[in-house]
């Protein structure tokens, strides 16, 4: 039995193909049933997201099993298997384990570190469990994969830094202010982007929210939507004096927040920092405010630069995550390896013990006068011999399984000792 994963992902297949293969849950249920009925795949999990369609399985003949699973899939979506076959990748054994771990840990994602994939893998696994297509091998594989994903999330910063402009702005605010709870926010202009940024800030505890706009009605509308307070356009400077974070996104052709006004405002703030998030193009805040102390101004390009830096930081962390995954794959194989040869070892021991007991009984029946000491000595002698004989083959089996090549050794042992049909 070999573990394998076969499929296609954003790395090798265009969205046009991926979307044609993606299957929703209730269809997936049927599909799993159909695949299992064929009897080629005793264990199977199908993962279908917008970025990947993959079959995880255990089979004697992985190539055959792969073709079978994807034929079913194609049939469901009315596709020609030959069109799909050319882009399918297949990973076997150790490679399959590595792939499963990397996918769950979001290292194979389009956006490395994105949090959704782990949930999707968990759902796919739960669905397969519900359909009873999960056996011991896939059960171990997936529970380990979830553990690895969790370690990667907690021990590396792969998912920590914002990769969207609005979240990057929130993170910047947190590097200026010690927490965003009860920080006042002023929205200048009523754009969609500024609304989004304001929502993120409010989620982090920012309060209250003021909204100002050239059109009084728009200001009132948005204020209502954000449970904030509308401020008259003429009163913007007064509002600036009292808030901590300003989000601007007007369509004005000229800056609406002037350096001179900010300088005046800063005078009365006694060092309270003021953070401008300027999402407007053309910009709403005069770049001159950068020269003022305690004023931090990030325009859309600055925010993009922060996002780029965050992506680089994520990539660095991904390197660490890869090392971690590699270690876990090694551990998994070591453990798995032993599991693979344990039935052989058990039946080998049982076989020899059976022979030993038979011979000891026969010998003792011919020695009716033997003292209890003699009987004990014969018993000990035979046991010691069995153990000595078994030592080398058992070590060899364990060793070979750790090297991932136990199959031929297992078969040889079964043949040589007449252990009957291998399970």
């Amino acid at each position: 039995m070999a573990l394998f994963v076969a499929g296609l992902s954003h790395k090798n297949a265009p969205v046009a193909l991926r979307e044609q293969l993606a299957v929703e849950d209730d269809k997936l249920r049927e599909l799993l049933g159909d695949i299992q009925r064929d009897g080629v795949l005793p264990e199977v999990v199908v993962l279908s997201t917008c970025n990947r369609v993959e079959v995880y399985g255990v089979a004697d003949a992985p190539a055959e099993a792969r073709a079978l699973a994807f034929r079913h899939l194609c049939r469901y979506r009315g596709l020609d298997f030959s069109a799909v076959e050319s882009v399918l990748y297949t990973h076997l054994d150790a490679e399959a384990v590595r792939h499963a771990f990397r996918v769950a840990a979001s290292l194979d994602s389009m956006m490395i570190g994105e949090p959704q994939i782990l949930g999707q893998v968990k759902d796919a696994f739960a669905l397969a469990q519900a359909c009873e297509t999960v056996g011991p091998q896939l059960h171990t594989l997936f529970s380990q994969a979830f553990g690895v994903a969790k370690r990667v999330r907690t021990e590396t910063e792969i998912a920590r830094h914002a990769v969207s402009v609005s979240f990057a702005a929130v993170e910047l605010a947190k590097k200026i202010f010690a927490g965003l709870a009860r920080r006042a926010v002023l929205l200048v202009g009523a754009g969609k982007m500024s609304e989004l940024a304001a929502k993120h800030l409010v989620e982090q505890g920012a309060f209250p929210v003021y909204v100002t706009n050239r059109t009084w009605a728009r200001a009132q509308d948005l204020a209502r939507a954000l449970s904030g307070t509308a401020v008259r356009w003429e009163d913007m400077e007064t509002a600036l004096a009292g808030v901590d974070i300003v989000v601007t996104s007007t369509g004005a052709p000229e800056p609406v927040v002037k350096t001179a006004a900010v300088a005046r405002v800063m005078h009365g703030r006694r060092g309270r920092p003021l953070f401008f998030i300027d999402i407007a193009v053309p910009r709403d805040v005069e770049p001159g405010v950068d020269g003022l102390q305690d004023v931090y101004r990030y325009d859309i390009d600055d925010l993009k630069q922060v996002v780029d830096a965050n992506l680089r930081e994520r990539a660095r962390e991904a390197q660490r995550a890869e090392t971690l995954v590699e270690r876990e794959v090694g551990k998994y194989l070591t453990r798995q390896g032993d599991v693979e040869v344990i039935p052989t070892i058990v039946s080998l021991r049982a076989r020899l013990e059976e022979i030993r007991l038979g011979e000891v009984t026969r010998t003792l029946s011919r020695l009716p006068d033997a003292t209890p000491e003699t009987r004990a000595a014969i018993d000990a002698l035979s046991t010691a011999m069995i153990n000595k004989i078994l030592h080398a083959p058992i070590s060899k089996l364990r060793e070979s399984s750790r090297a991932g090549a136990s199959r031929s050794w297992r078969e040889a042992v079964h043949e040589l000792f007449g252990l009957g049909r291998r399970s």
Partner: protein
Amino acid sequence: MHPSLINPAVVGYICAMGLALAYLVQRHELVHRLAVLATLAAWAAHTVALIVRAVELGAPPLGSLPDAISVAVWVIVLVEVMIEQRSGLRVLSAFVLPIVVLLSLKATTSRPANLAPVLASAWIWIHIALAMVGFAAFVFNFVGAIMYLLQERQLKIKRPGAFYYRLPALETLDRLTFRTLALGFPFLTVGLLLGAIWARTAWGSALAFDPLAFFSLVAWIIYAGNLAGRAAAGWHGRRAAYFAIVGFAALVLTLGAGLFLPGRHGS
């Protein structure tokens, strides 16, 4: 510090510093844990060394400047571990431990002179102990200021680098420098006053020229200015950080004067 125990403590601090700096570069959970362990182990060795020294002297190990610096280092490490535990400010050790290492190397390589009999009095111990606690607080004041300036610069130039990710919010750092200033200043003040009073009794003049006393007065004036500016004029952030650095420079000169120049404090 007791010579036979110099190595464990100092070597421990050096290891801890290396690990703390490594953690700053590559945030690895294990590295952080090892750094904390090394710090605690070194601190334990240091504690034993101080006790041995006290038994040997039959008095608190504060009678000479190297001994006193050693005690200050002991306090600094204790406070550093406590702040890190309480606030989760894990990068603090990367900034504090280099200072700890420099100070403890200095303390172990200088030969401690014994206290002149004329000075032996309970007041002198209090004078030294207070001055050292004040000094420990100002180490954190200095470190907070450095971290503030680094983070402030990152935010102003808008190119996030390693420090942007690792350092806490500006407000947090400004608060750290303010609190350590407010904490250290009374200790320094009372410590200096006791010194002056003692000098008057021992030598007949509170202002008898002594290099250490002179520089410590300079440091006191700088810190007093910083505290007054913060309290009355709303100083904060960069300006307060610059003052913290200048004040600490004066304190370093104070120690240097005590260690290298002839005077009543040193060898």
